[in-house]
């Protein structure tokens, strides 16, 4: 059986001041993902290793980690693809480390709520009148941005978020855009108030790595630039045509 050296970041806050690396020699098979290798360590070698995982089919967003410096879903990254090793596994960058490979993402949860990611209507249509009509083209307008699984890889790829944790960040903005572009929604203005603040979209300098690492092709970088363009158009309209409301 083939084997590979896996260097895993360990951090036990009660007893250690700084993180360190443990090295494990992991036997693996062709179809193993990084997550399988980590599970092997936990099950057979060191039960104290802590990390999150759930669906192991790339949709729950739990198992994001830095593998050889890149943020990936470990359930969707083959061991074979990061050979020869040693493979370095670290918690997602840009977040505080709680323990070993577990990060604290509470910051994102707060920011997500701030951008109001729900349908905002001036008036609700009664259920008895059925669904809001939405053509496949209208669905297509926002569908890409609705694919976000909140895996936090985009935050880990974003140097701006790492440098300035106040920055609201890629996924939250993409999700705001998901609702803005939904034909059923009327909350664009409210969200703009949040996102046009200094820690909103303007902090983004379009490094673009968020879109590169996104496992669901959401393209948050594009969403943010579109948002800037919209905000700019808004601004000019409000200055040049103050009587007209968008």
């Amino acid at each position: 059986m083939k084997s590979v050296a896996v260097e895993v970041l360990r951090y036990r806050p009660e007893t250690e001041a700084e993180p360190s690396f443990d090295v494990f020699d992991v036997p693996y098979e062709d179809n193993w993902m990084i997550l399988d290798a980590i599970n092997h360590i936990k099950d057979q070698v060191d039960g104290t290793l802590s990390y999150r995982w759930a669906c192991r089919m790339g949709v729950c967003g739990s198992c994001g980690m830095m593998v050889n410096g890149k943020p990936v879903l470990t359930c969707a990254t083959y061991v074979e693809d990061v050979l020869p090793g040693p493979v370095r596994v670290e918690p997602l960058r840009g977040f505080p480390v709680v323990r070993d490979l577990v990060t604290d993402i509470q910051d994102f949860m707060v920011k997500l709520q701030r951008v109001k990611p729900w349908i905002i209507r001036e008036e609700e249509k009664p259920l008895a009148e059925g669904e809001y009509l939405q053509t496949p083209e209208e669905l297509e307008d926002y569908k890409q941005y609705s694919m976000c699984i909140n895996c936090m890889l985009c935050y880990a790829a974003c140097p701006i978020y790492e440098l300035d944790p106040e920055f609201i960040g890629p996924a939250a903005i993409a999700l705001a855009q998901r609702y803005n572009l939904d034909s059923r929604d009327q909350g664009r203005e409210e969200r703009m108030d949040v996102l046009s603040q200094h820690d909103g979209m303007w902090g983004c300098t379009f490094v673009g790595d968020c879109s590169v690492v996104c496992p669901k092709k959401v393209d948050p970088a594009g969403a943010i630039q579109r948002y800037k363009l919209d905000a700019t158009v808004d601004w000019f309209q409000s200055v040049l045509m103050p009587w007209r409301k968008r």
Partner: protein
Amino acid sequence: MRTVNHDVLLIGGGGAGLRAAIAVAEANPELSVAVASKVYPMRSHTVSAEGGAAAVIRPEDSLDAHAYDTISGGDWLCDQDAVELFVREATEEMLRLEHWGCPWSRKPDGTVATRPFGGMKTERTWFAADKTGFHMLHALFQTTLKYPPISRYDEWFVTKLLVEDGRCEGAVAVELATGEVHAILARSVIMCAGGGGKIYPFTTNANIKTGDGMALAYRAGAPLKDMEFVQYHPTGLPFTGILITEAARAEGGWLVNKEGYRYLQDYNLGTPEPRPVLRSMELGPRDRLSQAFVGELKKGRTAETRHGHVVHLDVRHLGQRTIDEKIPFVRELCMKYEKIDPVKEMIPVRPVVHYMMGGIHTDLDGATPIAGLFAAGEVACVSINGANRLGSNSLTELLVFGARAGAAAARHAADAPAPSQSVLAQGLEEEARLQERFLDNRGGRERMANLRKELQDTMETSAGLYRDEPTLKAGTEKVQELKERFHDVALEDPSLTFNTELQTALELENLLDVAESVLHSALARRESRGAHQRTDFPERDDREQPAHSLAYATTGAPRIDYLPVTITRWPPAERVYGEPLSPTSDPVGGSAPPEDGGNQE
């Protein structure tokens, strides 16, 4: 131990839990709602559901047709009053979710699109491409964010229900990040913690589906109903167990054996047609399709791979366009996890444990026999799934019964007295137990992973697709042995910070209890029905009225009781699939029950 107080506590933040939370907030904005879940809500297993959610919306469909498909699919073990209520409220719930932003796939005119699913007479499944569960969960989660009364306790692992004088008054939970033990007191508690597919080795279920909610309620004295009925989904990927949605067959995929033969025709499931035919062949019910795989295996007509025997799901003839439009996630999963492209290659599949029809016994409002304790979703058994769940009913179920349980819990909370402070003594006891039993426990010799593996293998052998008395008996003995060996489990991690070893141990404890209830319920049911196939009792027993099993925890083996199935309009009949349907011969076109057994039933 710290204590937090709320009016309603939800345990589990998946589809049912979030729907219930909104229902409470809408029913009575005065009530404070707590959602405690061992994972962040969007990690819940609802996220993995693919194919769709059933609700009558098309003019040619009818509530009775949905009810009939559900009841016959469930092999007449469904409570028909529950089913009738379910189909009645399904459409409104689905529309509500549409209003909350769920991106349902659409028809060109902008109305919601539907697709057919296994065991259905007509197209009834709403879908959001093939990521329906994902979109539903995120729409629900994001919608909960707008309700100020909803507080979330993310990554809090509930270890015990606080029950005093037959009333549930809260729960004890470990905050994983800090290891702190909390008592969450509430007037109503809703259990929405999902199923326990991880008692099996090969399952579509996420790692988190360890039957926690079932085990908690079971230990608290609530009966687990119909636990012997475990659904195998006929099409899982080998090795990973990843689900290939029924939608792949609904869109026209074929199941073929190693000779390229559409073998379902040999199992009384109809005759092959190039286009999908409702309630026929690949669109038969899941139990029958999974059982047909075993038939092929016995005949030596399955293909052998490194990861066991498989048949193939062939979608190549659908063409890339349809595949990318209707089942893009299937393609994504195959490319990623099998390194094959279903546009060009056949997908290797085998049956895989998917869903537990059984669960905590509840009434139509999600109320359990314990006052103040409600349940909804896969963790519950309100008995709409019977002996075999109809595909795409579970997502709708968590909406309908999540909402009902939420509303009922809100009503209960308004009248119930505040939790007694004396219940906190139980909390302290639990805190001490966790400390002594797990954190201070050193020198054990049993590796948890090995115990879990033995448990899972036992379940597959004893309570797999086919069962008989000797293997079930052996299974119960083995699980008893594992429960004893669990006391000697090897624990190495004394940390209080995100101690996943502690979590794994608590989960294993839950898996053992759930497995026990499944095995004993299966041993006691001496007939074959739906997903429960006894080779020693191959016939369905209709001499008496069909009955639900109820497993009660005791200090020894569980006690199994029975409860008659509620039958309203559809007396038990033979399940027939694969007959050509003609509109004139539809037995459920009217409200009259099919008296002669019909030309199909």
